[in-house]
């Protein structure tokens, strides 16, 4: 997640000070990714170093204000215009866990899948409640609309995970069935029609 660009986007609407940026960032995203004020100031000083923001005096209460520079605006435009890179997927703990569970001794992979599915669907239930609350009244402002979008992203992401887990399970079941019925035709014939097993197979 890009805090840098998030802060630039907020600053584009006018000069702000650190803890104000933090509050606005959180209300826009429903506190889904909480920031501490230290992170905000660290990011601001890097942005200042890179010439994307500049200190811009103080407000009445003596808070140091920051404002976006022209190159900051250019940077922000290009962020909005460039798709988020998906070619380098971040490490996914669940994918790694299932990959490791395949054939691991003493591990019931279907139990691993179910326990994750339980957790994921439960999270979706919680998000869906929040969403129902958010939709109880028509979203009144920018922050409420933004929060709804973030919430729905969390739901869609959890849904993708739940679907993938369903898929993994049925894939494993199908593979296990195929492995159980596949080779050794003699064994199968023997099981199905014992009377015929006496027939000599070796005829040359």
């Amino acid at each position, binding site marked *: 997640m890009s805090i840098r660009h998030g802060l630039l986007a907020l600053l584009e609407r006018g000069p702000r000070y650190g803890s104000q940026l933090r509050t606005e960032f959180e209300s826009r995203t429903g506190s889904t990714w909480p920031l501490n004020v230290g992170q905000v100031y660290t990011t601001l000083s890097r942005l200042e170093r890179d010439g994307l923001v500049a200190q811009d005096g103080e407000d009445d209460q003596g808070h140091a204000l920051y404002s976006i520079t022209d190159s900051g605006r250019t940077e922000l435009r290009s962020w909005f215009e460039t798709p988020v890179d998906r070619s380098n997927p971040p490490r996914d703990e669940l994918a790694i866990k299932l990959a490791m569970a395949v054939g691991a001794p003493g591990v019931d992979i279907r139990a691993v899948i179910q326990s994750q599915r339980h957790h994921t*669907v439960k999270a979706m239930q919680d998000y869906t*409640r929040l969403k*129902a609350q958010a939709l109880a009244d028509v979203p009144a402002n920018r922050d409420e609309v933004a929060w709804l979008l973030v919430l729905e992203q969390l739901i869609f992401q959890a849904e993708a995970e739940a679907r993938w887990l369903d898929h993994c*399970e049925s894939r494993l079941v199908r593979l296990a069935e195929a492995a159980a019925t596949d080779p050794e035709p003699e064994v199968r014939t023997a099981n199905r029609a014992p009377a015929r097993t006496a027939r000599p197979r070796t005829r040359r």
Partner: protein
Amino acid sequence: MSSRAPSRSASSSGSPLSVDAPVLELRALTRTHGTGIAEVHALRGIDLSVHAGELVAVMGPSGSGKSTLLTIAGGLDTATSGQVIIEGQDIAGLGRKGVAALRRRSVGYVFQDYNLIPALTAAENIALPRELDGVSVRKARKEARAALEEMKLLEIADRFPDEMSGGQQQRVAIARALVGDRRLVLADEPTGALDSETGEAVLALLRNRCDRGAAGVMVTHEPRYAAWADRVVFLRDGSIVDQTLTADADSLLAAEGAK
């Protein structure tokens, strides 16, 4: 949640702690198709209670028994063993006519493919089960229009099914399932062929009805829709293997578990 006083204090052997008797109770339900080598166990001992105000989603891979469970709960199929108890009545003792009457009176069933009667308008489709139940035509039509109004569908009251979109047909089917204050709603993949926004509108209707006191069971393979439920039950090979709860339902089950 309402704290209705128990009218007839827990005659069943159920939990003495629960104030409300469940609207639907499945006890040790089994369903076997075929015999001998072709025997298939569709359900292997299902116990499930659904209370007023509760929406339960049933999930599971195809062939896990979800639809069988629902058709038996709705009296459309018969269990091999076990009990289906609807509003305190074991449907096994009701006979075919009794079950049909109970279904019309207490159970709303929503099918994946809507099952509207093509020759009847939306309002007539909704009024039909009430008319069959002996309600006067005038009253049944009035109720139907009220149900359509509640769903903001009054403008399609006089349309025939082939003049409606899929989403409208499904909402009419839900209105038909809910008309006349039925306390149990059973829905089989109610969002099946709908796009995500319409599917969500359908779910909101079910949710709303349960919030207002109905008990609901919905079979779905869509986690996003299951997430609208208070409880998600996972079925595998005819057995309940797991279930999730929301925080509210958690306390409910804790009370039940303490019996």
